């Protein structure tokens, strides 16, 4: 088990290195350098040269890469071109917000996905399965941004049950429980949209792995000896759990991608909306840092899923997770 995790960790580090290199090359491929957008035609070319030199933009590619990658790994992502603040400070604010949103969405996704998948697997090839499977496909296909606007229109504009957007009611000084309640009210719609959107794909996989588990001999044995159906399902679920956890880990990139859309629609000030705003502003240091942190989060997610599989499925420690 130790060596397996060590191998995974090494793989993760390699991936991060590749991410870094790719990000840097992408930045270098961009037309014009980061300065060109901020330089006025009236500025003296000598000043521009001086600025380029002080920012190190005139050094050869490999030198820039070395110093940049060194700084990046230690968490120094440079300065934001648009906000004139260290990218690290901006990320320190936005990452927790995205993590809160995505973890609650993940909970929604797992709950909905497992319930729908198990239901469909139990009613395999019958009306129940068809109905759930169709609903799942439709839910997967509805663009999440439309879903978000529908919810906003109904719950916030027409009925004002919930706040339209944002992370907290502006201008309200709250503390303790009221503060938490205000935050939670702002979180409901984005988390539901993100969770439901990612549950659709997950339910398909959950159905598949539950179907495989329900086809096993021990399920027939359990039924034959007259166990209540709930216990039988629990047997199968416990066996499918390893696969389900791996799949949940694999849904991290989807959650992040969804967060880009959902955060933009709900003006949730996390990494996703930061990414989109930075692209509009051509704020490349922020774009690359978000990309990098996103990749790290995904790798971390997979790694955590691996550990969780080892805890949840004793068979996995023998030969590595499914």
């Amino acid at each position, binding site marked *: 088990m130790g060596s397996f995790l060590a191998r995974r960790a090494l793989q993760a580090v390699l991936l991060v290195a590749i991410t870094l290199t790719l990000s840097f090359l992408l930045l270098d491929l961009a037309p014009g350098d980061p300065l060109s957008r901020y330089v006025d035609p009236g500025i003296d070319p000598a000043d521009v040269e001086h600025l380029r030199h002080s920012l190190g933009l005139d050094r050869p590619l490999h030198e820039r890469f070395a110093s940049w990658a060194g700084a990046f790994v230690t968490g120094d992502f440079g300065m934001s071109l648009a906000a004139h603040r260290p990218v690290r400070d901006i990320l320190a604010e936005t990452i927790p917000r995205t993590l809160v949103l995505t973890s609650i969405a993940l909970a929604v996704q797992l709950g909905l996905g497992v319930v729908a998948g198990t239901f469909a697997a139990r009613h395999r090839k019958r009306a129940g399965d068809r109905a759930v499977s169709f609903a799942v496909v439709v839910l997967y296909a*509805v663009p999440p*941004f*439309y879903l978000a606007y529908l919810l906003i229109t109904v719950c916030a504009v027409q009925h004002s049950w919930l706040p339209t957007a944002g992370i907290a009611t502006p201008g309200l000084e709250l503390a303790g429980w009221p503060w938490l309640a205000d935050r939670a009210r702002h979180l409901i719609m984005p988390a539901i949209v993100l969770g439901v959107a990612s549950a659709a794909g997950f339910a398909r996989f959950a159905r598949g792995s539950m179907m495989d588990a329900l086809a096993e001999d021990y399920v027939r044995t359990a039924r034959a000896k007259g166990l209540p159906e709930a216990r039988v399902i629990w047997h199968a679920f416990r066996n499918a759990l390893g696969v389900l956890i791996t799949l949940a880990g694999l849904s991290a*990139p989807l959650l*992040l991608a969804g967060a*880009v859309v959902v955060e933009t629609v709900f003006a949730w000030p996390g990494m996703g909306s930061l*990414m*989109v705003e930075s*692209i509009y502003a051509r704020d490349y240091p922020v774009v690359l840092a978000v990309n990098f942190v996103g*990749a790290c989060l995904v790798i971390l997610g997979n790694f955590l899923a691996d550990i969780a599989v080892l805890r949840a499925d004793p068979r996995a420690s023998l030969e590595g997770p499914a």
Partner: protein
Amino acid sequence: MRAEGVTWLPFASPGTRQGVGAVLAAVVSAYSAVVIVRLPTLTGLPPHELGVVLSGWACAYAVMVWTARRRGRVRRRFDGDAVALTAFALLVAMIGVAQLGPLVTGADPSEVAPAVRYSAPSADHPLGTDRFGRDVWARLVYGARASFAVCALSVALAMVIGTVFGALSGIAPRRVDDIMMRVVDGLLSFPRLLLILTAVALVPPGAGTLAVFIAATGWMGLARIVRGEVRRMRLREFVEAAVATGVATPRLLARHLMPNAVGAVVVAATLNAGTVILIESTLSFLGLGLAPPTPSWGGMVFEGRDALGSAWWVSAFPALAITAAVVALNMVGDGIRDALEVRSSTEV
């Protein structure tokens, strides 16, 4: 493959009387009917529009004739699958309408008419008009063109990259194969949308570039499938026999290994196409897809977001189009997979 299956008349062949063949025959007939009825408009079109309309007809006709000739086991099973067949009909109809473009819309998709802004669906504007008085139906049709073009291009590219990479990995020695698959694992763990967004931020794309970006981040699943099929087939006797008779590796791949992977690739590509449509619409929703004068479904939803309560038609129809296209692609993909009788454990 019998000779009587080939004929130039849409309805005269046994292959076009049922299932996929019948759907295609119906679409070709409807397409031809529209072309004939709107002949005056057609002759007045600029050359490239004329090319799109006519090549659409030629493609549909060619596909129909091709499917009419062969009705094997897989095709018969697909024809028996009502859900997949309906989805297929919907998909082909949507593509057909997109190809017909100016012949079915009547209005210019970018024509601004302030007098009729936010007018509800009516005889003049079947799906209403948007904030600038532009015809939603016309924009929907032209948006379909953009979506389908990006989708087709990107899926084709991803298929090529994935197939080549997967096939090479499949026949490569163990160690090389291991490295290649780790690369695939690595790329699969990237947040795809973030990568595409970064690329789009650096190089503002046209349809071609956009397709390249989407394909470059989406070929890994296909590579994995092809590699798996090739590895599986390599153990079979007919491959051993071919190797023993001295068949060279490229020929072995092309003649003996790849034909067995075609089914799995088609299924994966069809399902992938749905994802591409969603990604393209997400990008254009964020204002980072194709540049604004080109109508796009995602952009239309964005433009209609403020008027969802009052002028629901502006965003509802493009959202419906995205949903319909993605659902149809998924169901066609599922249908092909079922028709190919792939094992149940891969059924997810």
